């Protein structure tokens, strides 16, 4: 019941469908109140026009069409719902059993399903109903259910097979649950949406089949249904007599019923498979135009390659904005390897995506700037951005091996980025592709392979090769090796390091694995609750972490050497990013916080030793001015 209400609230289409269905049901239930005449009475004049005594006129036999329509709704709906229920029950039972028991049972049921799917529906209906002729309504329901269950069973079987391998079903098996309980208490409720959708589809199929059978005269034409109404109208040449309403009224009702079923189904689909409407465009930038960009004189003599200044970014949700990145200032020098670390949800990926204009809706940049070699990426229009992206900077994601198109050869996918940026000559493309593969340590003959022929590690190398194709100055890598095994991870990290040193590119490397980062990076920035709380040269950060969060994060990795002693995790959770945080975001979890200071003021990030800055009152009393709290 609660599920139904959510569906109605979230999907106007479903609400309209349910309303339509309810109206038709009322029509059927209240038939005696809606018309004074019996649908079978032939006591009236023939071929009367609509209006007056007879709302929709009368038939060639002198029956009232309106009465036939409202009474006909009863049988039509009864056949639709009952046949739908029976077919859904058969399909659900067989589909779930096939998926749960597997093996021979599955194969037998699968063969049965496929046989019924291959048999053409209408001829089967006709033959079966010829056999069961004279059996009345129930034989029609049986025939329709028997021809209509297979499609739903097939969909359910494939979904249940996926569900069967889910951990919670395995966990129920291990805890000792019996098969019936697993099927009915664990699996069935998770398939409710699918089963409901299957029911409405088969109910629609049942209504249409009944109409088709009746129209062909195969059903029991002495009963009043919308199908038999059309049969008689056709048999008596209603259209030739100009009595189009005799055909139109039942036809329209069937169409309305079909629309109602389809709308309810759409609604179920909308709610159970929410699809984010994807807007393929550059990240929305909401910052106000500054009167004059404060001309920041080149304070740091070596001009940074990437300069992120006061960047605030996040997501616009119905509950309000979520600031995942809060006033972050960070720079990457040419040829530098910058590591970005923090727990999940600390904003490290959002920062990288926002700075490179890759943050998809509902993500937005609220304020700040990100300059790549002096050019403000956040001010570029989409055409300019397309020119810069991949040529000046490129990206490698965590599961990026999945971006390889399974039906294209690796060669074409390596060519693709270069072709998009104007390299067309086959010879040059091929030479460059071979060069790239040598660079990341893959044999050249893999250029002819399809992605499925490569292991996960190989695919990730291909993706890195593609990212390097146009010799970008900066490559942003978001957990590029997290899904890989340690040995493969190490091999790839070594390739990345070698390539960086040879080509002199800068790398921003995002990961939660701090010990890995210390080994790889020149400099590390630690993020917490959307802010950079500490930034230092990698080995200094490892030797002398200053922020209590960095220290605890460092301690959260058990060592491979030294005494085996009990360590503590970091108790508590980061604050919600939907709120303003005008105090130190870590104070609640901090064992050393200063009451009256850390929970009242926000520490500014201050350079405590050369190149090592930290935002913590234990190290500097400087208070940070809240730039955005006002808006």
């Amino acid at each position: 019941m609660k599920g139904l209400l959510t569906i109605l609230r979230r999907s106007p289409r479903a609400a309209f469908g349910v309303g339509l269905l309810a109206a038709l049901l009322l029509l059927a239930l209240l038939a005696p109140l809606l018309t004074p005449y019996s649908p079978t009475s032939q006591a009236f004049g023939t071929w009367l026009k609509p209006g007056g005594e007879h709302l929709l006129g009368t038939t060639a036999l002198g029956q009232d069409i309106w009465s036939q329509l409202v009474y006909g709704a009863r049988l039509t709906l009864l056949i639709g719902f009952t046949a739908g229920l029976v077919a859904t029950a058969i399909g659900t039972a067989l589909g779930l059993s096939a998926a749960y028991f597997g093996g021979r049972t599955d194969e037998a049921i699968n063969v049965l399903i496929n046989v019924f799917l291959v048999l053409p529906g209408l001829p089967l209906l006709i033959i079966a109903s010829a056999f069961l002729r004279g059996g009345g309504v129930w034989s029609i329901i049986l025939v329709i259910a028997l021809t209509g269950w297979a499609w739903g069973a097939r969909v359910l079987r494939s979904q249940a097979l996926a569900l069967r391998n889910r951990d919670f079903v395995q966990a129920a098996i291990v805890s000792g649950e019996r098969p019936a309980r697993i099927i009915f208490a664990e699996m069935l409720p998770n398939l409710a949406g699918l089963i409901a959708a299957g029911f409405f589809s088969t109910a629609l199929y049942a209504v249409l089949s009944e109409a088709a059978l009746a129209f062909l005269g195969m059903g029991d034409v002495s009963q009043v249904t919308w199908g038999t109404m059309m049969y008689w109208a056709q048999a008596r040449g209603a259209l030739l007599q100009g009595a189009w309403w005799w055909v139109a009224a039942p036809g329209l009702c069937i169409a309305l019923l079909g629309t109602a079923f389809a709308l309810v189904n759409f609604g179920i689909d909308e709610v159970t498979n929410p699809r984010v409407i994807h807007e393929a465009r550059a990240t929305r930038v909401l910052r106000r135009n500054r009167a004059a960009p404060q001309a920041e004189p080149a304070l740091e003599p070596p001009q940074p390659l990437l300069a992120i200044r006061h960047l605030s970014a996040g997501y616009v949700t119905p509950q309000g904005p979520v600031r995942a990145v809060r006033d972050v200032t960070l720079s990457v020098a040419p040829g530098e390897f910058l590591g970005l670390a923090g727990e999940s949800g600390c904003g490290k990926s959002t920062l990288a995506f926002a700075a490179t204009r890759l943050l998809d809706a509902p993500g937005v940049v609220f304020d700040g700037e990100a300059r790549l070699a002096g050019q403000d990426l956040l001010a570029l229009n989409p055409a300019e951005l397309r020119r810069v992206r991949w040529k000046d900077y490129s990206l490698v994601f965590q599961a990026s091996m999945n971006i390889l198109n399974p039906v294209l050869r690796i060669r074409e996918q390596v060519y693709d980025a270069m072709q998009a940026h104007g390299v067309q000559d086959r010879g040059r493309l091929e030479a460059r592709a071979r060069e790239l593969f040598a660079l990341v340590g893959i044999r050249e003959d893999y250029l002819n392979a399809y992605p499925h022929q490569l292991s996960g590690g190989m695919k990730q190398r291909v993706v890195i090769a593609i990212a390097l194709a146009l010799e970008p100055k900066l490559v942003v890598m978001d957990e590029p090796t997290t899904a890989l095994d340690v040995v493969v991870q190490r091999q790839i990290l070594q390739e990345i390091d070698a390539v960086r040193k040879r080509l002199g590119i800068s790398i921003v490397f995002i990961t939660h694995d701090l010990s890995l980062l210390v080994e790889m990076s020149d400099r590390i920035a630690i993020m917490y609750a959307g802010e950079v709380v500490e930034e230092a040269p990698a080995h200094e950060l490892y030797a002398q972490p200053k922020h209590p969060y960095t220290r605890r994060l460092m301690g959260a990795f058990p060592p491979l050497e030294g005494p085996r002693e009990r360590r503590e995790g970091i108790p508590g959770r980061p604050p919600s990013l939907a709120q303003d945080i005008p105090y130190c975001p870590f104070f609640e979890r901090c064992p050393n916080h200063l009451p009256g200071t850390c929970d009242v003021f926000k520490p500014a990030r201050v350079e405590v030793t050369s190149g090592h800055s930290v935002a913590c009152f234990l190290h500097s009393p400087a208070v940070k001015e809240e730039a955005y709290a006002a808006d």
Partner: protein
Amino acid sequence: MPQTEPHARSTAKPNAADEPAPALILEGLTKVFQVGRSGRSVTAVNNVTLSIGRGEVLGLVGESGSGKSTIARLIAHLHEPTSGAMCLAGKPVPRQLRGRALTRFRKDVQMIFQDPFASLNPLHTIGYTLARPLEIHGFARKGNVQAQVSTLLDRVGLSPGASYAAKRPHELSGGQRQRVVIARALAARPELILADEPTSALDVSIRLDIMNLLLDLRDQEGLSMLFITHDLAGARYMSDRIAVMYAGYLVEIGPAERVIGQPQMPYTQLLKRAAPKPEGNLNAGGLEAPGEIPDLANLPPGCPFEPRCPHARAVCRAGLPRMYDVGAGHQARCILHDPELAAQPLLHPALQPHATL
């Protein structure tokens, strides 16, 4: 923070005559899967023999495809072994179990899955999920199920338990969900817990909390545990002994400190060098083992690691090396521990050996 010594406990000696039988003994456990309609055979677990003492944590380490998760699923009877024997607390377990016998067996062996977001049914309350094992295994008496559920939740650090029982999984954080999963495993009062990468889906800041909880439960209740992981440092933190798997074979087993400190099989050495080490240098020594894990349907004839091994000799290709005793309770599957075989010339001189045994 208090620096207590968590591993100060006697290492189980499974063969000592005066001690009770080990919690689990596996003898030649093998699982061959038939893949696809062509009936290609994939040997996921190959003749594995090991034991877990009472109250012992055995770490099982390996990369994906090494067969470590399959071993847990074989022990839990989620798959049926192709061959091999298994003893639980000294009693042989039949390879095929059905009906009541299977339910009784499941009471004693419980499993913790990797991803707490996937291993709890999203539609059930925490209370329902925890009450089920109590009901199935006959611990529930009228009226006290709720009290038992709260006690379970309190034991895994979710207090007050009663307030968590009414929640559904989506209302809990990853760490809290994993605690519920652990509580479900405890509900049946098992002898043996199979923990299949219980921390790898969790955030770094809570991994230690979950590992500490498991260690506390082991200390308080004397549980035996198989702790599966791909993380050497985590295995060292958790385990009394560590077993290393490669391509379905057990290749090294021994006391945790020794296996990680002085690995005696080239593959374990490779794993150790590949692990992130903040104090180290990325390229120090490099990795001299090219290639990847072999195709399980087409294993090399001898040692599974031979094609990648810088120390390989001709004899490694001829047949599977046996397990050599290399120290107290420490065994490694490598012919370098046989001085006569180790004197043979190298098979792959191009792979420069980095460290000698």
